[in-house]
């Protein structure tokens, strides 16, 4: 406890110092260690498949202000953890016609779900498709529990996705892009570089060509999704990757894609693969 307080005091001091130094306030070289024990890789070499498109890959955390960064240092300060607690209740609750809860088959998620978040989206051999974590959760709910599927980007789903991510925190994102996933990955890559909408903007225009630049009041990041679902101070809830994709495409004055669409599943796989090597951070905190 003393150690925690001292750490917090140090952070408050560091935050104050940084505010004086630069008002934009992002310390891109800060280290992220959660709860004093989970060492996060927030900056590392780009995966080979990027072919030099990025000099290195950086977690969205490195682009945020010192104050926002601090909220992810300790789970007691991380508002996203409130939703994780709620999801833990849901995990243990029996739902649906089969009289099962998640825990009936999977026990303690902190043990059984270790490493899962890091490799999703992932090819599912039996289903013959690339599945996101959300799809897998709903498959379990419908087929094994006899329960209704959750809304793709709804609060229940975002919270469950966050809970399942927690035991993988600190592990490197490592989604497979070859073999049967290759086709979906290639489709996601094509979407990433397509200039949509009346503003004719691709993901790459902002997040590859212009990360670290300001666009009006926004400090552009690399658009990495290793921290998703992410608690945003802007809307005070957990946000899923597909909800963020939808908003981004909409903001190009385009007809956006739907959460859970083939396009966004492919895009999630591709964007996740751009972060292969960064740590799973969810639930992360951003502005």
């Amino acid at each position: 406890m003393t150690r925690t307080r001292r750490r917090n005091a140090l952070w408050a001091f560091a935050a104050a110092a940084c505010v004086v130094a630069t008002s934009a306030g992002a310390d891109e070289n800060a280290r992220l260690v959660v709860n004093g024990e989970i060492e996060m890789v927030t900056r590392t070499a780009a995966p080979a498949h990027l072919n030099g498109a990025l000099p290195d890959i950086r977690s969205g955390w490195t682009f945020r202000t010192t104050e926002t960064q601090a909220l992810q240092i300790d789970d007691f300060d991380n508002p996203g953890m409130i939703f994780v607690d709620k999801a833990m209740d849901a995990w243990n609750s029996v739902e649906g016609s089969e009289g099962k809860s998640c825990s009936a088959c999977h026990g303690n998620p902190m043990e059984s779900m270790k490493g899962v978040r890091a490799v999703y989206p992932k090819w599912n051999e039996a289903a013959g498709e690339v599945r996101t974590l959300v799809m897998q959760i709903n498959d379990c709910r419908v087929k094994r529990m006899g329960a209704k599927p959750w809304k793709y980007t709804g609060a229940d789903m975002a919270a469950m996705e966050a809970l399942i991510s927690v035991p993988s925190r600190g592990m490197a994102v490592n989604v497979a892009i070859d073999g049967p996933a290759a086709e979906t990955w290639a489709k996601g890559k094509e979407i990433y570089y397509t200039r949509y909408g009346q503003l004719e903007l691709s993901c790459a225009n902002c997040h590859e060509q212009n990360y670290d630049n300001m666009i009006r009041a926004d400090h552009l990041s690399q658009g990495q999704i290793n921290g998703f679902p992410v608690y945003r101070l802007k809307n005070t809830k957990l946000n899923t990757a597909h909800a963020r994709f939808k908003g981004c495409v909409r903001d190009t004055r385009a007809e956006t894609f739907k959460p859970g669409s083939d396009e966004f599943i492919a895009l999630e796989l591709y964007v996740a693969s751009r972060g292969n090597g960064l740590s799973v951070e969810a639930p992360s905190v951003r502005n």
Partner: protein
Amino acid sequence: MKLSSATLAACLIAKAAAAGGVAPQDVSFAEDGAVAVSLSGMAGDPAAGARIMTTRGKGNCIACHAVTTLADAPFHGEVGPALDGAADRWEEAQLRGIVADSKKTFEGSVMPSFYKTTGYIRPGKGYTGRAAEADPMAPLLSAQEIEDVVAYLMTLKD
């Protein structure tokens, strides 16, 4: 009779043309991307141009470009080059071409095309996320608004 957005857009374009202006699909870009004549057929108003450049629902030029003389408006971006001294570096015709459709001057530019009405991928109805109803759609800025912005840019001399 209910006017569809397409009809409306067509009417607006026709009106611009009738007033001595140039409709978006008729703009003549030189080899280097320059546009020699006023798109509206009239002179631009630099004061109106400054408002368009700082207004989110209009040009919002400062979202990407810093402009010292517009420092009263908050949050200038860094995506494009600063525009200070633009009139020293460019002729009016080139600036008009860049504002109307920058990709004709800078191939592959990130900058949106402000006087273009067709040829988009999944064009939307504004920022609703829904599909656009009109094709051709209304340009991001009208001919006169482009002229106003160009007139303001011509005041940016070091």
